[in-house]
């Protein structure tokens, strides 16, 4: 495994663990952005350069920025992080941790026989993705647009109620 790949993988994993363990929300969001960048690097190595670019632009760029806005709006102060500390007692980690470990072990156990000799990874360019996107999966694109529209309407509706209550 190439050193660069190892580096990217480790950045992703450490970032992910830091996200779930931080008490302060803003720190968590920043760590999340780091994991996503690591992930993008990995995607490039996998030959999905178009996907990596999308990851960086949409995911890290747009969604994470949304997160930051919302966290700032919520104005989480000191008492919140104190409460987070109280919530994250070590014994709290025990139950879900064990469950997650079990699932990870089972997945690993199942996945090992699947992968076999790996042929050379030929990068899949944006050209191929575009062809298949609007070739076979044109219907999926339409459905995706419906999804986005629904999400838009929902967000707007929930947001609007807040004004009336005042």
């Amino acid at each position, binding site marked *: 495994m190439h050193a660069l790949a190892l580096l990217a993988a480790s950045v*992703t994993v450490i970032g992910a663990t830091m996200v779930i363990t931080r008490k302060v929300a803003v720190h968590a969001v920043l760590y999340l952005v780091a994991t996503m960048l690591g992930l993008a690097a990995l995607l490039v190595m996998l030959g999905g350069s178009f996907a990596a670019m999308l990851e960086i632009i949409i995911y890290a760029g747009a969604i994470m920025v949304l997160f930051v806005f919302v966290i700032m709006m919520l104005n989480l102060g000191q008492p919140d992080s104190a409460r987070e500390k109280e919530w994250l007692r070590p014994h709290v980690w025990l139950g879900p941790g064990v469950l997650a470990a079990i699932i990870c072990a089972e997945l690993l156990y199942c996945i090992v026989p699947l992968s076999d000799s790996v042929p050379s990874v030929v990068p899949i360019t944006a050209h191929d993705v575009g062809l298949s996107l609007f070739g076979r*999966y044109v219907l999926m694109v339409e459905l995706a647009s419906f999804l986005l529209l629904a*999400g838009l309407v929902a967000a707007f509706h929930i947001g609007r109620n807040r004004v009336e209550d005042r």
Partner: protein
Amino acid sequence: MPVFSFNDTLLLATVLFSVGLAGVLVRRNMIFMLMSLDIMLNAAALVFVGAGARWHDAAGQVMFLLILALAAVETAVGLAIILCLHARGRPTLDADTGNLLQG
């Protein structure tokens, strides 16, 4: 020897997925749950792109694209709900208090 074998991708995705899962289960604050959820989504997306690369099929990346759309919408709605809860006088954003649907 390719830079990053499919086997490794799966390995990494599993780890990421379990970490995300743990996060969702542990954290009581909704925002943190959403973030952990995004980690899980990314793990899944990773596998799709890995598989696309492995079998030389653009479908993997098409699926990645859709997962992105999904994540976007999900985050948007989630945050809207959080804002609404926060405004309604739920400063603590505790996931356990919203249990009106108790059986």
